[in-house]
């Protein structure tokens, strides 16, 4: 019998076998990804510093000291003080705290809503798909920042408005990504098998499709969060963000720019902090993408 199986019979193809084993091995070597690793280290340091701010600095971020205004950097004030005597390094750490917290919360809602709507549109198609995707087209037609700023302006400054604005604008990207992935995945045999097994559409989406496609949305979330941080900082700069005196990188940049020629550290370091946070998150996103996308290594 086995002699008969020799010529041209479809045994397990070696290439296929190799591809099947590539995924778990790559997953085990995640720490070997330089981009992912440096991003994680960088973000880890930043998050730790922001979280441990009360331990790292003896000053209160909102306590004014009019006897010590606009001091240059020194051992007592690492980055000097601002025009009303607040320690800049302290405000930087607390500002990071505010902005990171808002950004991480703000990325969740559009992620969930976009993923849910995108998978419905992709799986069921028909009028659901048409309506949702026209809505997406309308939102995408406007530039991201312009729309966010306009929305927050209408809703009034503050954290709640930022969440609402980012959710209203941000879900469309997730919906698009997930819809595309679901369109491809629902043609797979395992979805046909699940349908043949008498599973409902909702169950197929939740248990079978989403676990297979959600990684793409997670990768996108890493770059989306960068966009969100920039939006939050921009809003703060325009005075539409968290109201003072709560420290926020955007308002720090704005406050310091009057003293740019004499006290450059007041604007430069908050700006640099935004850049470094963005860099860390982008590195993580790239690393994750390399790790998860098959073929890219």
């Amino acid at each position, binding site marked *: *019998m*086995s002699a*008969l*199986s020799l010529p041209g*019979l*479809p*045994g*397990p193809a070696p290439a*296929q076998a190799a591809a*099947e*084993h590539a*995924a*778990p091995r790559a997953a085990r070597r995640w720490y070997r990804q330089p981009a992912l690793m440096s991003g994680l280290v960088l973000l880890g340091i930043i998050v730790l510093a922001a979280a441990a701010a009360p331990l790292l600095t003896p000053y209160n971020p909102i306590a004014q000291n009019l006897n010590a205004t606009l001091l240059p950097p020194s051992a007592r004030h690492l980055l000097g003080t601002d025009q009303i005597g607040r320690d800049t390094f302290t405000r930087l750490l607390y500002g990071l705290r505010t902005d990171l917290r808002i950004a991480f919360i703000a990325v969740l809602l559009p992620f969930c809503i976009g993923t849910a709507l995108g998978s419905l549109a992709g799986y069921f*198609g028909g009028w659901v798909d048409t309506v949702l995707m026209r809505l997406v087209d309308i939102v995408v037609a406007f530039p991201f920042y312009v729309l966010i700023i306009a929305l927050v302006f209408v809703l009034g400054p503050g954290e709640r408005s930022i969440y609402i604005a980012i959710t209203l604008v941000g879900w469309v990207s997730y919906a698009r990504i997930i819809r595309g992935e679901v369109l491809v995945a629902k043609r*797979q*045999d*395992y979805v*046909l*098998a*699940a*349908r*043949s*097994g*008498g*599973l*409902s559409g909702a*169950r197929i989406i939740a*248990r*079978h499709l989403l*676990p*297979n496609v959600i990684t793409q949305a997670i990768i996108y979330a890493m770059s989306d969060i960068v966009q969100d941080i920039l939006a939050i900082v921009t809003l703060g700069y325009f005075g539409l963000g968290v109201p003072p005196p709560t420290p926020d990188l955007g308002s720090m940049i704005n406050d310091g720019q009057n003293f740019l020629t004499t006290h450059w550290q007041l604007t430069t370091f908050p700006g640099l902090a935004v850049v470094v946070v963005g860099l860390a998150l982008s590195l993580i996103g790239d690393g994750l993408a390399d790790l998860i996308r098959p073929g890219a290594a």
Partner: protein
Amino acid sequence: MSREGAGTDGAGGIRGGAGTGPGGAAPGAAAPGGPVLQLRDLKVRIATRRGLVRAVDGVSLEVARGEAVGLVGESGSGKSMTLRAILGVLPPEARVTAGQILLDGADLVPLSQADLNRIRGRKISMIFQEPMSALNPVMRVGHQIAEGPRVHLGYSRSKAAERALDLMRRVGIPDPERRYRAYPHEFSGGMRQRVMIAIALSCDPEVILCDEPTTALDVTIQDQILRLLARLCRESGVSLVFVTHDLPVVAQLCQRVAVMYGGQIAEWGDVRDVLLDPRHPYTLGLVRSAPDVDEVRESLVAIPGSPPSLVSPPPGCRFHPRCAFAEEDCRAEPPPPLRELPGGRRTACLHHERCEDVLATERSPR
């Protein structure tokens, strides 16, 4: 595992006594009343850019309790579409335009998807050709087996897990406790197909539809899987509809067979009768084009020509352009209906007696 009675090693094995196959004793004994599954004049149309494809064009057949029915034919003969129509999982551009699908006498065609979901996986389940792609790559194998009982039988998590382990044992997956938590990519092709079979069995269905379940496996594994299916068929009285283009497989597993050509049934009857003594030139061609192990033939006889276009099928008998027996009456519309022959056989050929002549001359000693 002992031999299941049927010849196994090729078309020649049929002579060894197929037809007494796995469920050989079952159909009569376990059939209280009519067939479990019955198709009546089923028609499936697919809308394509080139036109309306008559993928399934008036197929009728019946499956008794505990019986394995083969559905044989070339690619594109409508075998798989027939199976998908039974489950109501046709591609979006295809639909059933006529006919009935009777499960225990109740028609499935008019049912809504929600109603079908109470039948799919529970009363009728399906095994697919590619066990790799038909299993969810990111879900633990045990959970995939346990899902059916959870959804259809309302089992608790622990009871469903118990059921899954039991099924894994029944289909011969070694060390089920450990493999329960494994992912499909950690399984070999044959083990994956066993998982598929366990999933199909999970709610004790009445019928399992098999879409070329052994085609993607190598021959020794193929044999194991067929024996497993035969054993399950015998033990649990489940009926099989087995789609394949592999005649020896049909001979090994099935009691009756439908030969499909161009979306229609060309011939129907007991496996032994149909494969040893065909009454349709297409079946004759299939049998003669299959390699034979016992008997070294001078050459394999290929069927000339290619399968018909199902957008504009040839008038009359679908097979006549490739048929050596074709006469003027074969070209006349409508296509010849199936005619009854003795022994519960049916053929679509108007000149089926010619097959006898051919076989007689071929088998006479030279």
